[in-house]
Every structure is written in structure tokens, then in C-alpha cells.
């Protein structure tokens, strides 16, 4: 598929169209996938550039993230974007859904790593914004607008991204059974001068922990220092010999049968842990960023989600994975109707997709 042909298909379509990548997050958002005509990005599978010396790359939207990482790893580099991958998640899909993983602590989200974007628009044109250099303020930052837009403004067809060097890593972990102690330990590390690559918090089954990873030639001494800090904060702590499995588990716990993403702040972490325990769920979170994924038992249902929202108000609690009946019983996006920001979003949608062809109903406020 050429970018232009895709744009023209969007322009000429008289029924709703959804552009899909690996379909690993297809159930997210506000509408069911089967009401759309689907266009797959699977033909857009080329890594167009890997500029090792510049630590940048240009990828087509349908490139599987795992495949891109394999390519970058050969040069000892990585795209510092590590969301959970159920298998075949594409770079375009990850960016469009605004998904992220533990590396976000140090390197930011998709919005922070995308240097430029090429989009096929419902007016039949193909437009680019940004560029492929790591510093660029020319024009509006449409890459940020499209990151996390769930395909409702047009289709991302190509992305330029910033890469980072892969460095030797070492991790430390600490665990305990008191939510306040665990949250306090995470807070201590978030405010320490140790430069963590990832700093996570987790809770399940009456106990929780803090997991912190360092990267660099002196990663090990930093992990040792972190272990001491965790102990001082009251956790049982150790330096981990092999940390890959622990981090994989953190990523995996962002997906499940009923998962709510909570936009909290650091000082709310203890409350999120307590609520998780009360609702007999599990959680992982980025301790310094305040973003938490709370996994509820399916039986908790919409009532469980509503309770979480009440107790953690005013933090936004967005439903990601969920059974259809839960999704139907509440607004998965948790955006109050009538807010000025929502009105501005509607106006933005109307300018880019006036006929409502691109994934209508999937996004906030029925956009």
C-alpha cells in the first residue's frame, strides 16, 4: 500500500474505517471493532533508515516493535519503548495507543521518542510533521497530537524515532507488606541522586515491592546503593543477579482481563496500593511518574472500576482491557462531558476528520 492510496481510501470511504497494526490492543477504547472496515498496516513493514551514528531510525507504521528492536540491538542500540507485547505489536499501534513500559521512567513515552510522523489524512493527503533530527521546533508538533490519538485523526504511516545506546544493567528490588512503607521506599528512590533507567512499584496478594534498574558501566554500584536505600526505607532488599524476568513480569502485569490505567501523582501511590489490596487486585506502576496499571478480578466488574474512580478521584482511571459488559456499562475514558478541553478535542477532530471516518466512537467523549 502506498501512503497516498491509504489516504485516498480514507477520503473515499463512506463507512467508518479503522486502521490496525498487530491488533494487540484492538479492544481498547469505546467501541467494538467489528463495526469498522479494517485497513491493516501489515504491508507497511519496512525499516527505512537506521542511522547508527545519529541514534535515529525511520520506520513504517506496520513494523513489529520486536523486529525493530532486534535490528537496533545489532548496533547495541534500542528504541526505549517497552510496552507489554502480546505478540506482533507494531510501532504504529504502540504510538497510536500511547502505550509504554518501564523504560518510560528515564526516556519518556512514545510522544517523547517520536521525532517525526507521516500521516495519511481523511482529506486524501499525506502530511509530515517534525523531522528526523533529535532537535527540531519547526512547525506544529503533530507527532504529539497523533501519539495516543487512537487513529481518530488519520492513519500514522511512518515514524522517525530517537534511539538510545544499550548499556550493561543491574537491578535492585525491595519488598514488604505495608503499602505506606513500599510507597515511601519508592518515593525515596524517585528523589535520590541515583540515575535509574526504570523505577517501578508493584502490589499483589497482600505484599508489594519496588524494582529499580540502572544502566551504564557503573550500574552495579548504583544497584548496591539502591539496595541500601530500600533497606533504610524498611524493605527487605537485594541486588538481582538476573533481572530480565522481573522486568518482563512488570510489563506483563499491564495487561489482563480487567485493567485500569490510573493517572496518579507520586504522593497517591500508597492509596493506589491500598485500593488494589481492598479490591483484591494487582498493580504495577511507574513510581516516579505516578502512572499505575491496576488489574482487577473480573468479578469486580464495572462496580469495581467505579469504586476505584471514586476513591482515587480526581485521578483519571482509564479502562484498557475489559470484558464487553464492563466497557458497555461505563465510559472507559473517564472524561467528564462538557469540559472545555473535550470541546477543543472535538474541534480538533472536526478539522482533521470532518466526516468522522476514522475510528469514530473509539476515543474520548465518543470522538
Amino acid at each position, binding site marked *: 500500500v502506498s501512503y497516498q492510496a491509504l489516504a485516498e481510501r480514507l477520503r473515499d470511504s463512506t463507512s467508518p474505517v479503522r486502521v490496525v497494526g498487530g491488533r494487540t490492543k484492538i479492544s481498547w477504547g469505546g467501541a467494538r471493532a467489528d463495526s469498522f472496515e479494517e485497513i491493516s498496516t501489515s504491508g507497511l513493514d519496512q525499516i527505512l533508515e537506521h*542511522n547508527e*551514528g*545519529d*541514534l535515529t531510525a525511520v520506520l513504517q507504521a506496520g513494523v513489529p516493535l520486536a523486529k525493530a528492536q532486534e535490528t537496533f540491538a545489532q548496533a*547495541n542500540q534500542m528504541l526505549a519503548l517497552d510496552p507489554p507485547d502480546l505478540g506482533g505489536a507494531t510501532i504504529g499501534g504502540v504510538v497510536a495507543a*500511547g502505550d509504554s513500559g518501564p523504560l518510560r521512567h528515564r526516556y*519518556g*513515552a512514545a*510522544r*517523547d521518542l517520536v521525532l517525526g510522523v507521516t500521516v495519511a*489524512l481523511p482529506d486524501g*493527503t499525506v502530511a*509530515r*510533521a517534525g*523531522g*528526523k*533530527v*533529535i*532537535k*527540531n*521546533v*519547526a*512547525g*506544529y*508538533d*503533530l507527532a*504529539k*497530537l497523533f501519539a495516543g*490519538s487512537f487513529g481518530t485523526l488519520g492513519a500514522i504511516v511512518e515514524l522517525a524515532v530517537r534511539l*538510545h*545506546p544499550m548499556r550493561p544493567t543491574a537491578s535492585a528490588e525491595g519488598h514488604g507488606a505495608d503499602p505506606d512503607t513500599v510507597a515511601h521506599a519508592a518515593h525515596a528512590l524517585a*528523589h535520590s*541522586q*541515583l*540515575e535509574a533507567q526504570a523505577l517501578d512499584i508493584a502490589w499483589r496478594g497482600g505484599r508489594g515491592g519496588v524494582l529499580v534498574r540502572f544502566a*551504564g*558501566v*557503573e*550500574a552495579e*554500584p*548504583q544497584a548496591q546503593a539502591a539496595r541500601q536505600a530500600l533497606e533504610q526505607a524498611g524493605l527487605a532488599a537485594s541486588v538481582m543477579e538476573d533481572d530480565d524476568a522481573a522486568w518482563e513480569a512488570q510489563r506483563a502485569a499491564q495487561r489482563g482481563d480487567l485493567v485500569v*490505567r490510573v*493517572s496518579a501523582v*507520586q*504522593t497517591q501511590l500508597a492509596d493506589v496500593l491500598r485500593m488494589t489490596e481492598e479490591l483484591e487486585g494487582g498493580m504495577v506502576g511507574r513510581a516516579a*511518574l505516578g502512572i499505575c496499571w491496576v488489574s482487577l478480578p473480573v468479578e469486580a466488574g464495572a462496580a469495581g472500576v467505579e469504586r476505584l474512580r471514586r476513591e482515587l478521584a480526581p485521578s*483519571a482511571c482509564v479502562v484498557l482491557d475489559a470484558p464487553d459488559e464492563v466497557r458497555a456499562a461505563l465510559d472507559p*475514558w473517564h472524561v467528564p462531558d462538557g469540559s*472545555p*478541553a*473535550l*470541546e*477543543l*478535542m472535538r*474541534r*480538533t477532530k*472536526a478539522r*482533521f476528520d*470532518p466526516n468522522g471516518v476514522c475510528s469514530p466512537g473509539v*476515543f474520548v467523549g465518543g470522538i
Partner: protein
Amino acid sequence: MNEGAFLGELEQAVGTDHLVTHPHAKRTYESDGLLQYAVTPRAVVLPDSAEQVQRVVRLCHENEIPWVARGAGSGLSGGAVPHEEGVLVVLSRMRRILEVDLDNQRVVVEPGVTNLAVSQAVGPTHFYPPDPSSQIVCSIGGNVAENSGGAHCFKYGFTTNYVTGLDVVLPDGSLVTLGGKELDMPGYDLLGAFIGSEGTLGVATRITLRVVPKPESVRTLVAFFDSLEEAGEVVSEIVAAGIVAGAMEIMDKLSIEAAEGAVHAGYPTDAGAALVIELDGFEHECETGFREVQEICERGGATSVRVAGDEAERELIWKTRKAAFAAMGRLSPNYYVQDSVVPRTRLSHVLHRIGELSEEHGLRVANVFHAGDGNLHPLVLFDASVEGEAERAEELAGLIVKACVDEGGSITGEHGVGIDKKRYMPAQFSEPDLAAFQKLRCAFDPGGLANPGKLMPTPRLCGEIPGVYRQHPLEAAGLAERM
């Protein structure tokens, strides 16, 4: 509404003392940091609150009068140059730090607060990383408008990576809150789209920033080389070694000469290039990396290396680097400053090309740049009193920008497009790209009253969606046509 009535309403909105209408007084605001552009506005207002900003903007909206927001006026793209028919909204009175929430690593400020004041408010434990050279005077509101960078953004990122929330007065006078202290708020990332929009989408009246713990250790050196190419090669090797420097800055021979004349740091004025490298972070990591950097410099042909032994010596290195711009006046009565970016690996090639262009035009070009991220600041030196030299300088500056874009770069890395670089926009963006930008613009500012004539290369209008055709005032006046 007649002129008197309009000014009367403005006066009611901000108070008698904060409306400026006298021609001499208005001239204070005719330029920003780029002095070659000067326009006297219809009126200047200095509001003290978001409510006052709203009242002013609503008045402009109701009367179809353009307006321009201005922070400290230190911008280098003419982005805050007034509109002659319009109102200039100066935010310098809104300089309160509203909240320091260190527990959540957030600071909430008004737009007129200076960049440096944010770091001062959260020190000594934390700091605010984006550090434009003008940080003593430049305002956070201006930083948001321009998505400002600075020497340390190679490691730490730009303004856009540190703003988590904004209150914005939209061009219809309404107030909208985008983001907050939290991340990943549901909905479009309008916050990300607003940052760097150069005052064309609205004006931020309340800004929430993320701050981070201050690094444990900072090590700084300056290495001297015979040529720019050698210095550039060393930068590439440091990056290839996986070392993430806090900053890597190169000054060429002319810049060294100018800065040395101003600061007297004792730099060798016969050196072809000076490379400033700063590493920060965990002490062990920093020390190990710093030793490696010193070895790479020596292997790379450094004629001498000066390591800052204490904070005073570090400050001297940075003072010399940051003085390079202002000190150009010692070498030349006038200069054009550019802000182009190239992929780092194309630096030597582009520098060589700039040398050729400089020779062809018979004009000197000094270079100070952020080498880590390939952001060049070529300064085209000229004497405006010599006939034809200003035009030649402008042409040369344009060719330099084109050379950078041809290498896959950008026309601006941190200064913004403003008035100064809008003519180069078509070199980087196609018509469909610009049309897509305009869609965003129209969502925020359908009347085109916020900072018109900036950023986009040509005036554009917004159609109604959906709805009936209505002639736009600019169209009626023959000043613009519908695309």
C-alpha cells in the same frame, strides 16, 4: 467599536497603569531579541491575572483585532514582534511561583517567571533541566511558546518533555486546562501540540512543570583542536561509545576569539575549535565516563584539555561559551544568527559546505553549536553600512539553512520560526504538511487572530466546518485568499 471605546475597554480590563498607548512608551516593545524586526503595536497591555488576559483576548475576539503575547522579549525568531493593528499582551507582571510541590516533583508558575527562577525555587535538591542561554531573563511562558532547549537538552530533553499541565486562554477568550500534575490524561495530547506553537494557538497563563533531582556529580572540560572536523569527530566517538554527555558544545576559531576578548578565560586564540563537554550523574558513572572522554579527546588530536577543577572554573567555561553570541559585536557590527539542525553524522560535511559558502560570498561565518544534537548557530557577520552587504548576508544565511535541510535537517532547533524563518518553511515542509498544520491552527483559532503572520509562510484562512461560506475580513480586504 471606535478606537477610543476599544482602548477604554482595554483600560477597564487591565487598569489605567497597565495600558500603554503613548507612541514613545509603546516603542519599548517594538522588537524582541531579534532587533532587525520592529513594529509598534496599536496598544500594549500588562495583565496581572488569567482573568485579565481573558478579558483582553475576548475584546480582541469580539472586535476582530489581532493580538500577540510577549514574555521577556528575548526570543530570537521575531516571534513576539507586535502586530501594527494589534494588541501586545505582555506577561511580565504575571511572575508568581504558585506552588512548589517537591513531593510530586512539580512546580506551578505563572508565565512571566524566569527560567532560572524555577531551578532556584526547587534547589538545592532538584532542578529544572531546560536551560536556554538566556535563562536569567527568559520567561517560562516564552519557553513554552518556543519549546526552548539549551545546552543540556541532549541528555535531558526540551521544554516539551517537562511541561505536564497548562491553563491556556484560547483566542476566543475562553480558558482551557490541558494536562495537570498527572501524566497520560485521557484524550488528545493538546498539551504537546500547544508547546512550541509560538503564540499562534493561545496564551498559557498557568504552567505546571516537572523537576528532577539534581545530579550527584558534574564534571566539565574544554578541549582544543586544530580543526572543527577533529572536534566533530570526537563528539561522534563519544556518542558511539554509549556515553550520554550532559552537554557537548563546539566553538569555532572566530567564536573563541570573540568570547576570549570578552571573558579573558585564557583560551588559545590560535585553536581551530573548542569542545566543551559536561558529564553529570551518579559519581562513579560520571568519573568513569569522564576518564573515557578525556582519553577520546587525546586520541582525537586535542592540542590541550582543560578540566574544571572547581565550580568557579566550570562557571568560567560556561560563561565563555555563553558569551560567544553577545561578543560577536567585537568582530562585526552586524550579524545574522541561524539555528539549523543537521543529523550529527553530517556535521563535518555541512561545516565544510558553510566554509565554502562563506568564501563564495566574501563574508565571515562564526559558528557556535550544540554538537550533541547537531544544532548549529552559524552567525553570518556583516557590516550594514557597506552597500549590498546586508543583502549578501541574508542570501548566505538562506543558503546555509538550505544546506542543512538538504542533509535531512531542520530550519530551526530551538529559536522557533517566528517571522524570521517562515520564508524557509517551504524548504522543509510541503503544501499538504502546511495544510495539516493549518487544521490544528483552525481548531484553536478559527479567526486567525493569535500572533498572525508568524510560523506559517503565507496567510491562510479557516473554512467553517460544517457550514455556510462567509467572507473573512482579510479576504474582503484582499490580504489573503482561501486555499
